[in-house]
């Protein structure tokens, strides 16, 4: 009897042990607290939802995903430590971080250890460093901004532009890319206003923009700051068209800024309002599951997790080196890879291209005004 019990226990243990061993670890290093929580937590929920779906459908190559979360606290040094921890935990692929200032630090560790990393960051510098393990889930600002520049010039007829941007790694990248675009298109920059991360008072900045004699304002800041800026702009009656890239018209900013977000125009790579049935379906599911609307970060996280699945299935094994090699120059079409939601390609630097949209905020919701082809 005792022997039988011991045998059963041993078999049980062996089974659980094998089960645990067979799981593939995917690490999500994100801004779950600190100034970037508005972006990182949403990204993480997107990842979580995709992983649950993948696991329910049988996992990757028959193995369940063991999703581990690591909080970077929106601190670049801490994000480096967390990536190190994720690699110690034998992560197959890393997802995150969203803030560019963190990604530029922690991608070095992933590179040294040969672990592929799918980031949500959009700063142009990320894919310009020749790191063969970094891949984007949304294209960099340098790809989106020319589209926005053309919109400002041709659709709005603006010649004089006032620029307000966050003086961080993310904001500086976008600012510099926009300046280059403005020069190419012959747009005149009449005000150039840098702001701080976690800045609360935008009164002086808005006053500066108002007195610059601009035809339109280009804004490039993260979620909470964008919302505070919009509220202040409405309060002071700025009265200029405000355009931006992705963040300014995101669901999070609309939720935070309320009515003040109405009228904002933006170029967005990903939006829950996109006229793409797969995205709308994903967004509806997300809303039901988490009780709030999905924004571009949620969609990025979702696509990131699915990309891991498709690429791994394509190479047929869990091999980090092959994963990185395969992703360079890879295109995934949404018809046969529904989890990527839209057709997408990665180039040799890990930069991606995908169709994008011009949106306007009307009555607290994004409205698509134009669909722009991939470039």
């Amino acid at each position: 009897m005792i022997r039988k019990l011991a045998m059963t226990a041993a078999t049980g243990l062996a089974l659980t042990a094998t089960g645990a061993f067979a799981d593939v670890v995917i690490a999500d290093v994100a801004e779950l607290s600190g100034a970037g929580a508005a972006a990182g937590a949403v990204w993480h929920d997107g990842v979580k939802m995709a992983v649950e779906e993948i696991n329910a459908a049988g996992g990757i190559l028959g193995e369940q995903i063991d999703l581990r979360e690591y909080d970077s606290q929106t601190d670049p040094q801490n994000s480096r430590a967390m990536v190190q921890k994720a690699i110690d935990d034998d992560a197959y692929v890393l997802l995150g971080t969203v803030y560019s200032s963190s990604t530029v630090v922690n991608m070095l560790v992933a590179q040294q250890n040969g672990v592929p990393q799918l980031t949500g960051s959009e700063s142009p510098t990320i894919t310009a460093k020749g790191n063969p393990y970094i891949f984007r889930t949304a294209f960099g600002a340098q790809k989106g901004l020319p589209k926005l520049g053309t919109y400002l010039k041709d659709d709005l007829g603006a010649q004089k532009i006032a620029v307000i941007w966050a003086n961080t790694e993310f904001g500086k990248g976008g600012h510099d890319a926009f300046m280059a675009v403005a020069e190419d298109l012959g747009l005149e920059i009449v005000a150039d206003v840098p702001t701080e991360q976690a800045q609360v008072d935008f009164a002086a900045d808005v006053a500066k923009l108002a007195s610059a004699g601009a035809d339109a304002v280009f804004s490039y800041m993260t979620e909470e700051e964008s919302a505070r800026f919009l509220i202040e702009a409405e309060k002071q009656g700025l009265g200029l068209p405000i355009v931006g890239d992705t963040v300014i018209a995101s669901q999070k900013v609309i939720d935070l800024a309320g009515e003040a977000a109405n009228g904002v125009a933006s170029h967005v790579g990903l939006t829950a309002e996109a006229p793409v049935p797969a995205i709308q379906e994903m967004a509806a599911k997300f809303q039901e599951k988490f009780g709030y609307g999905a924004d571009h970060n949620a969609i990025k996280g979702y696509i990131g997790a699915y990309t891991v699945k498709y690429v791994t299935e394509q190479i047929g094994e869990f091999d980090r080196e092959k994963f990185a090699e395969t992703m360079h120059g890879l295109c995934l079409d949404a018809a046969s890879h529904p989890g990527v939601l839209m057709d997408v390609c990665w180039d040799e630097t890990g930069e991606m291209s995908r169709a994008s949209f011009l949106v306007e905020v009307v009555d607290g919701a994004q409205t698509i005004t134009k669909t722009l082809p991939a470039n």
Partner: protein
Amino acid sequence: MTRKHVHIAFAVIALALLIFVPLGQKNYILYVLTSWLMFSIAAMGLNLTLGYAGQISLAQASFMGIGAYVTALITLAGYHWVFGWLAAMGLTFVIGLLLGYPALRVQHHFLAFVTLAFNTIVFLVLRNEDWLTGGNHGLVGMPRPDFFGISTGRNLQFYYFVLVLFVISAGVFFWIVNSPWGRAFKALRENPVRAESLGVDTRRITLLAFAIGSAFGGGAGAIMSPLVQFIEPGSFALIHSLKILLMVVVGGAGFFYGPMLGAAVVILLPEVLRFTDGYYLMIYAALVIVLMVYSPSGLIGIGQKLMQQIRPRQEVRKDMAKGAQL
């Protein structure tokens, strides 16, 4: 066994632990331990300024920043790390003197404001002077040094390298606080008027404590460059000065082991409390408040209170009963 023997035995055991515990640990643990040693050095410097000389400085992170950038620029230019380290400590010592000279005319919370402003200026210079500091993009790819053909490139080797620097720093710190200077620092903290009446040149001694404390910050910064291999202005903002201040206060300002204990708590506690999910920052903050109310002299103060219960004949140092005056 005398009190001195107990101290020596404790130091030997602690050192043995620091040597053997990291063996076989994974990279993440090694990274956290190395960060802890680095912050302990920065906190030791602040302990000298705050705990021994009684002056509040909110600029320790900016001294780390200056040290880190100087070392980064020197090592990226192809020179050995040792030159960067010496330059970092030398420069922060001189800046400490220059800042301290006018700043120490004002003391206590006024000095806190002056150092707070200094920290902000350093942050802005690091961020805006792109040509030198790389601005927001920071500096990247600082090499880890070689010594006599031995590389510190791997995390375990780098840990031992930092451990050697830590032991040197702790030795220098111990020597300072037990030297006539150290006694002058303490005299100054307890009663500046009496210290001056006994012939202690208060201005000079305070300035010296501030400058040496700053140089420790610079030394810690020189370690950060090759440890993280990426530096950017945000890592040296005011919040990080407050973090180092918290290390000193939580551990116990004015105690030799205070900053080391404090740095361990500030770095490791969030990690230990992580299982509480979104609540850990709140719990952490609440614990610090409770600690400060119950024992203003920090964790070492709690230890002494407990020892007092067990061995009532041992009397707590009267000067430490209230903790360093914040």
